[in-house]
């Protein structure tokens, strides 16, 4: 096994036991990036010199017995996170020369705990997309089959972990942008509760929906990173004071007796869920039952309105958040925006405009309440929800790019979670035609430890994480 095949947990152990150095570990990742980034296009900016320099400094600290949660571990950051002194583009031509004067809070936290940022990963520009094809820097490819999409918008981050370019990667999930690419790349993707992790310094897409999460190979690694990134931030007024638990303590507890709900609307096929996805999901349910969980049918009656509701609220907030890009203080002029960004800006401007606000935006805000109520009601009778992540298996690059609406509908199983602000964890659940697929677990607000527990049990039973997208 090469060093970059390790999980974060294993790498930490190896570093502590002096089996290898951080410099060696980081170099292994950088080598893969150099070899494969041209074809996979996972990174927009690679921080080779800075990373190696930081790795050597980490090695010094390790020698002195220092122990920080992520000391010496190579991590990639979605290029929507502000990194001081390092170009941050949001994968858009508008910002192709923008260098932030400050670090996002999450970046600062990762650095403070010793993580080494190896580079900035590709994404759908401005996080607008579900496939990774909307980047102004070219599409990212799925390492399991380069003709297929890796999912988006956090495409590069998912691929960086799946292809061994980093041991973990940050992402954002506004309508499924972590969970979907995780399920398409055989990685673990966490979308925490809205507000659990600070948004400060992360280029805003839709302010009331953006959740800050990450990709890892295992659930245990995911819990480790959340322990670093979670918590109230004085610079983000939407982060509650809820204490951050030790996410490792309940990780290995068995899930016997847990009640797991399956929303009938998510599997009925009415939202385009294919037979093969359904079959894979049923297998996963069998696994959960084997582990002692109780599978219960539930209903989330307003599920069908999720996409319509989301595609009013999100573009409205997008149109406002992208107004600051006028080329005066930074970046290029507004004509540099790509098609999808322009579409969403106009859609949002329209639904907020005089004469249409009540019928569209206000109505959507009310439907949002209905969707929140659906979840609250469901969680009175169950502990967590399980469902497929994507209605279909990964599609070929180019299949949906001519039909924006078709692309939007890929989010049908993920958006309602964002509208409600609840957490979601995607864990690998197998393969369809040699392409990865995943299962998502949703829970009440601040139930990440429960989701980790379920995900860990499922993962250890199925061991899909042992499969690699490349020759080991």
């Amino acid at each position, binding site marked *: 096994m090469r060093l970059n095949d390790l999980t974060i947990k294993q790498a930490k152990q190896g570093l502590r036991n002096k089996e290898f150095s951080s410099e060696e570990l980081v170099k292994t990742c950088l080598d893969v990036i150099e070899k494969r980034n041209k074809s996979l296009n996972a990174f927009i900016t690679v921080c080779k010199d800075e990373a190696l320099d930081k790795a050597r400094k980490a090695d010094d600290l390790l020698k002195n017995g220092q122990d920080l949660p992520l000391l010496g571990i190579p991590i990639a950051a979605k290029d929507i996170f502000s990194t001081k002194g390092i170009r941050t583009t949001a994968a858009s031509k508008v910002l192709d*020369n*923008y*260098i932030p*004067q400050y670090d996002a809070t999450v970046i600062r936290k990762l650095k403070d705990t010793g993580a080494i940022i190896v580079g900035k990963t590709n994404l759908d520009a401005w996080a607008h997309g579900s496939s990774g094809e909307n980047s102004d820097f070219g599409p990212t490819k799925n390492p399991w089959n380069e003709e297929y999409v890796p999912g988006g918008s956090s495409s590069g981050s998912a691929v960086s972990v799946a292809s061994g370019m980093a041991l973990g990667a940050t992402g954002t999930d506004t309508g499924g942008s972590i969970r979907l690419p995780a399920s398409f790349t055989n990685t673990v993707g966490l979308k925490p509760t*809205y*507000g659990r992790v600070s948004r400060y310094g992360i280029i805003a897409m839709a302010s*009331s929906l953006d959740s800050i999460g990450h990709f890892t190979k295992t659930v245990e690694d995911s819990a480790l990173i959340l322990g670093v990134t979670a918590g109230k931030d*004085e610079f983000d*007024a*939407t982060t*509650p004071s809820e204490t951050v638990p030790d996410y490792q303590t309940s990780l290995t507890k068995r899930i016997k007796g847990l009640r797991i709900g399956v929303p009938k609307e998510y599997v009925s096929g009415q939202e385009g869920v294919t037979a093969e996805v359904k079959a894979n999901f049923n297998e996963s349910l069998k696994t959960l039952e084997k582990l002692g969980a109780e599978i219960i049918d539930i209903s989330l009656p*307003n599920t*069908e*309105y999720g*996409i*319509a*509701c989301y*595609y*009013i609220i999100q573009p409205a907030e997008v*149109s406002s958040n992208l*107004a600051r890009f*006028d080329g*005066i*203080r*930074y*970046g290029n002029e*507004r*004509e540099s*925006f790509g098609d999808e960004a*322009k*579409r969403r*800006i*106009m*859609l949002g*401007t*329209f639904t907020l*405009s005089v004469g249409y606000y009540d019928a*569209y935006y*206000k*109505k*959507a*805000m*009310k*439907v*949002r*309440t*209905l969707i*929140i109520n659906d979840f609250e009601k469901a969680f009175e009778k169950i502990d967590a929800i399980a469902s497929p992540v994507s209605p279909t298996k990964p599609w070929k690059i180019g299949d949906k790019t001519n039909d*924006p*609406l078709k692309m*939007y509908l890929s989010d049908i199983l993920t958006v309602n979670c964002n*509208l*409600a*602000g609840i957490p979601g964890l995607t864990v690998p659940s197998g393969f369809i035609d040699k392409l990865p697929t995943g299962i998502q677990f949703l829970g009440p607000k601040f139930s990440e430890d429960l989701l980790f527990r379920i995900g860990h049990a499922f993962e250890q039973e199925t061991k899909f994480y042992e499969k690699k997208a490349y020759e080991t």
Partner: protein
Amino acid sequence: MKIDVLHIAKLANLPLSKEEIEKYQKQLSSILEYIEKLKKAKTDNIIETSQVTNLENVTKKDEPTPSLSQNEAIANSNNTQNGSFKVKAIFE
């Protein structure tokens, strides 16, 4: 549902060509058609949700801290003059 793309583009400060206006007209209309399904949702007596945190009264103290230096503030602009940002003349 037809959007006045020209008007909306102006409001949104987006310069569009004639071809773009036509293209977006079509695409946005089809998206809006889908969104119409929201009308079926029963929302009588339902209060709007604009935030999901249920937080209130999150404020900061009135204590100043150091600002960015002038160089840092203007570092990313191509058009500055003596520390100010520069734009084409605006006539008020």
